[in-house]
């Protein structure tokens, strides 16, 4: 897609990050289920609904109400191996996982955060069903941190711990299906200050914070183990949260697209104000029932029987996916709003898609194209267009959209169309938007406010003792920027450094350097390049525990000669897991030259190489023969020196 250019500084682009990272704990956050055990099957199903609770003022929170309006039937798929009755909200929480709190403290220390003295668990309401309780348990562990970024300090607002939510299986009409295996896994959320200024900075900050998380050595890796929310606004706009960005590479297009969208929405606001729209009283959406008018439409889904056929084919069941009421088609007349439906928003999208997003999520009318207007009217149905234009004849300044489906949902849809235009009067609504790989976003929900947070009365606070924090600080691995500097100085390649920090090999490198006196560059190349190569050839190097790597390096420091058989040694270590590397080497007589090895050389020199070989060819021939016998026992250099002097190699004897 062609990306229009934008001067980010001029439009006042501001972005911040919320980086979510799963922790490598044995158990979940608030119960004793195993963490990280995913299943594709289920052996139980639960149906629930969410009901908003009355807010402080005895009113329903806007977001909560929106989510209640969707009247979602929520189905949870359970498997006994990874969920218990806690996840299903049938048992109160157990005490918070202290291992998770420890990792959060490590993250805080790495980012220079001030650890909160007493951690209080809060509930953050979500009514979309992604968490069966209707809220996520979460707590701030540290505040006021920073990390070095592009020659300046990037502020860290807070680091918190929280429980992960369900994985969505399907969302169709009024039914959403969630798989519960991931639910309750411990996460840390690292929140930056809104101090990022360009889409590229956002991508870079994601990478850097990811490195910090991984530097603790206590986080999960792999698909879905880390997810980012990017908060974006431009001057005059509002914070929009782009949710669930799986990798840094998506960020530039998403941030750019959102900045573009906000600039355009601000333009639309000015246009609406220019036309005299000031507040709710100026905005009307007339509902005109056009079911009979379109009864003979060539567009299948606009006719009752065509639509019926479609929902049957889609497997939409009454009382589950399907909304209530008879099938109707409504035209929503938009007085004074001509031209606004085609108003550009994100690159390649127009304002009608903003309406469609809200209608899809809130009313449950999600069958494409969700709504019709002049701009997406199906080809070959010009007659219907004419009928509608005639029926809806108003001033030139009017426009309309058409929605269809069960009548109850049409009421919701009409209400949402009006609400979205009301928001347009303000410019940019605060909302959470779902990210897609192609760089576009779609409406997910209204952005939750602080009103949706309240104390978790089921959980006592945890006092963070000085002893605990200091013990973790003493064992803290170095932050990535410190390692990056040290490794680069030792002469390691940037790619190798990145790999070591992301994949956890850095901890081993530092360990063998510190404890065995290994050479940093040699150890870095070993863990960051050589072992990778071996792993690619099918050797399960992950089977070797840290203490055995340490034993190996003790041996290598003592007997550098064994570097010549490192690959064989590692192979054997994988196979024979109970013996020490020293014993394994000794059993093969590695490190001990045969007493008669020059005689052995004599014997080999009796063999004749191919007569066509030149001197270096002959040298390689004899060297190969010799090292097959002597590798790991006599240094190659020593053998080479001897061979080089021999007439058989030099070609003086034939």
């Amino acid at each position, binding site marked *: 897609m062609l990306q229009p250019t934008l001067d980010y500084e001029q439009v006042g682009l501001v972005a911040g990050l919320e980086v979510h990272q799963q922790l490598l704990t044995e158990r979940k956050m608030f119960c004793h289920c195993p963490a990280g055990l995913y299943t594709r099957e289920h052996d139980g199903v*639960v149906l629930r*609904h*969410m009901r908003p609770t009355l807010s402080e003022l005895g009113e329903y929170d806007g977001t909560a109400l929106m989510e209640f309006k969707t009247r979602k039937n929520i189905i949870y798929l359970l498997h006994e191996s990874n969920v218990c009755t806690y996840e299903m909200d*049938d048992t109160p929480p157990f005490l918070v996982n202290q291992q998770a709190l420890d990792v959060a403290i490590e993250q805080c220390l790495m980012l220079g955060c001030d650890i909160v003295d*007493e951690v209080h668990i809060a509930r953050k309401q979500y009514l979309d069903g992604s968490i069966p309780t209707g809220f996520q348990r979460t707590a701030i562990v540290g*505040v006021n941190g920073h990390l070095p970024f592009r020659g300046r300090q990037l502020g860290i607002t807070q680091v918190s711990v929280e429980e992960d939510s369900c994985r969505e299986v399907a969302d169709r009409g009024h039914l959403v299906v969630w798989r519960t295996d991931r639910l309750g896994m411990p996460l840390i959320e690292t929140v930056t200050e809104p101090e990022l200024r360009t889409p590229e900075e956002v991508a870079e900050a994601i990478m850097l914070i990811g490195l910090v998380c991984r530097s603790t050595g206590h986080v999960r890796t792999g698909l879905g183990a880390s997810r980012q929310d990017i908060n974006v606004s431009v001057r005059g706009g509002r914070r929009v949260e782009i949710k669930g960005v799986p990798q840094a590479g998506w960020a530039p297009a998403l941030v750019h697209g959102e900045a573009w969208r906000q600039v355009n929405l601000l333009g639309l606001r000015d246009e609406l104000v220019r036309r005299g729209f000031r507040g709710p009283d100026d905005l009307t959406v007339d509902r005109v029932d056009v079911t009979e008018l379109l009864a003979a439409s060539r567009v299948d889904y606009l006719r009752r029987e065509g639509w019926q056929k479609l929902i049957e084919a889609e497997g939409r069941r009454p009382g589950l996916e399907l909304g209530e009421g008879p099938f109707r088609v409504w035209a929503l007349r938009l007085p004074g709003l001509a031209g606004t439906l085609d108003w550009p928003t994100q690159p390649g999208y127009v304002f009608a898609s903003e309406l469609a997003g809200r209608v899809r999520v809130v009313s449950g009318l999600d069958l494409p194209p969700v709504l019709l207007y002049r701009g997406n009217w199906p080809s070959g149905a010009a007659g219907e267009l004419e009928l509608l234009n005639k029926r809806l004849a108003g001033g030139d300044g009017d426009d309309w959209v058409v929605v269809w489906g069960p009548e109850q949902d049409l009421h919701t849809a009409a209400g949402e169309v009006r609400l979205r235009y009301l928001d347009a009067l303000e410019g940019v609504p605060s909302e959470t938007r779902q990210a897609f790989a192609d760089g576009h976003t779609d409406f997910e929900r209204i952005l939750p406010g602080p009103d949706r947070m*309240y104390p*978790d009365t089921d959980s006592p*606070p945890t006092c963070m003792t000085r002893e605990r924090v200091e013990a973790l600080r003493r064992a803290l691995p170095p932050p990535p920027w410190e390692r990056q500097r040290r490794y680069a100085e030792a002469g390691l390649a940037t790619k190798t450094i990145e790999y070591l920090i992301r994949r956890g090999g850095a901890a081993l490198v530092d360990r063998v350097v510190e404890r065995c006196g290994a050479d940093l560059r040699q150890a870095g190349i070993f863990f960051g390049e050589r072992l990778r190569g071996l792993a690619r050839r099918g050797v399960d190097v992950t089977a070797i525990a840290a203490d055995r790597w340490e034993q190996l390096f003790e041996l290598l420091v003592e007997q550098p000669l064994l570097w010549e058989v490192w690959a064989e040694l590692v192979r054997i270590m994988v196979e024979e897991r109970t013996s020490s590397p020293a014993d394994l080497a000794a059993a093969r007589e590695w490190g001990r030259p045969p007493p008669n090895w020059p005689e052995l050389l004599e014997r080999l020199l009796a063999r004749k190489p191919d007569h066509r070989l030149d001197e270096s060819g002959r040298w390689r021939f004899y060297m190969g023969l010799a090292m097959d016998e002597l590798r790991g026992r006599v240094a190659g250099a020593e053998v080479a020196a001897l061979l080089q002097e021999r007439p058989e190699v030099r070609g003086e004897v034939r």
Partner: protein
Amino acid sequence: MSEGSDEFKGYRGRALRHLRQWGVRVWSDVRVRNDAGSVFEGVILPRSESFDDLHIVIKLKNGYNVGVHVDRVVDVEELGYKKATYKIPEQEFPRRRDLPAVTLLGTGGTIASRLDYRTGAVIPAFTPGELYGAVPELADICNLKTEKLFGVFSENMAREQYLILARKIGEEIAAGVDGIVIGHGTDTMGHTAAVLSFMVQDSPVPIVLVGSQRSSDRPSSDAALNLIHAVRAAAYGDIAEVQICMFGPTSDRYGLLHRGTRCRKMHSSYRSAFRTIGAIPLALVDMKRFHYLTNDYLRRDRSRQVRIDAVYDDRVTIIYYYPGMAPDVVDAMVDRGYRGIVIAGTGLGHVNKPLYPALKRAVARGVHVVMTVQTLWGYAQMYVYDTGRDLLDLGVVPLDNMLPETALMKLCWVLGHTDDHDEVLQLMRKPINHEITEREPHNGYLILQGGLPETEQYIASHWK
């Protein structure tokens, strides 16, 4: 100003001294800076008195709470003061001539509530207007009247509350209501349902006890749906008995109506904790229909005269037998003047031999000793084994398949009428409303055992 006053709710010792010194209090909107230069802006919240006196709790602007150690605070600035008002706004409950009249009696616990977002405190909604705000669906079901009788946790329900409740039910029936709902904490809901089954007989209208297993301040609470089901059962149901209305499955699907004498809370926290024991429930109720599971119940009949028989003698105890129980446990009860002992015996209704002399002494002192089974399902059948026959000879009276708690409540009620041994035993053994049944249907005992292929197949094909 004393410790624990409202201004410093929950703060004591060092934390309290510091708050005073800083000139701030609970609900103060503050900016606090600590020795690391971190700034916390928000409202000082009340603190639980069971927590230490070293931290103050601040609700930050972003909604999170943190505890700040008082020794680390270097600077406090009061920006304002925002006291929480624990009041729920009322909306008038709409009334319609065509809808039945239901009275909701409150005993405590919250079936509907609003949440204080700052403290997490739950403010119960109880007047019709408050309930209408929280569960608007109620207005489509009935014309609701409410009366709060007491505000106690269900474990604090006892003689006084039972008597008041029974008499109040009588008054409401006399006033012509179409049904009565009793909001009740779930822990002892079974006990209350049992005792009301004896105190309120021949009711012309349904009397429905209801509660919730997840508090109503949670989006996923069962409270609203339970209340809707219960109000529907009271307004339109045909069963004019004391009954419990709680979730059938843990899914939001339907409620079950359980007979008051045969129902028990069988899980400490599950939504579907309430089960009928040794029989089947009376009916299923959901948003649209009633599905009666049996014909054997008292029909709604406005012409029937209710009998309110509110008496209760609480000098009765329950002894849960265990191997090696010493006889002095029984002796102590007798010596302390208890008039009735319900034994929850092992198996078919057994205790060990060393207890015999103590039981003999109890019976000789005129104490009424009855036997139930701690297996909950099944009958006390004391003529099967020697032990049982010996106990019968000692004067211990088996109560067949009466639930232990039901037996306790019934013995209290019976002793409110008479202390004559023969009369007591005759009343205990004569069922008033199915507390003893002659037959146990084979589907009255069903505890599906997980892991079995057929159970797993069932679970996989039904919403739990």
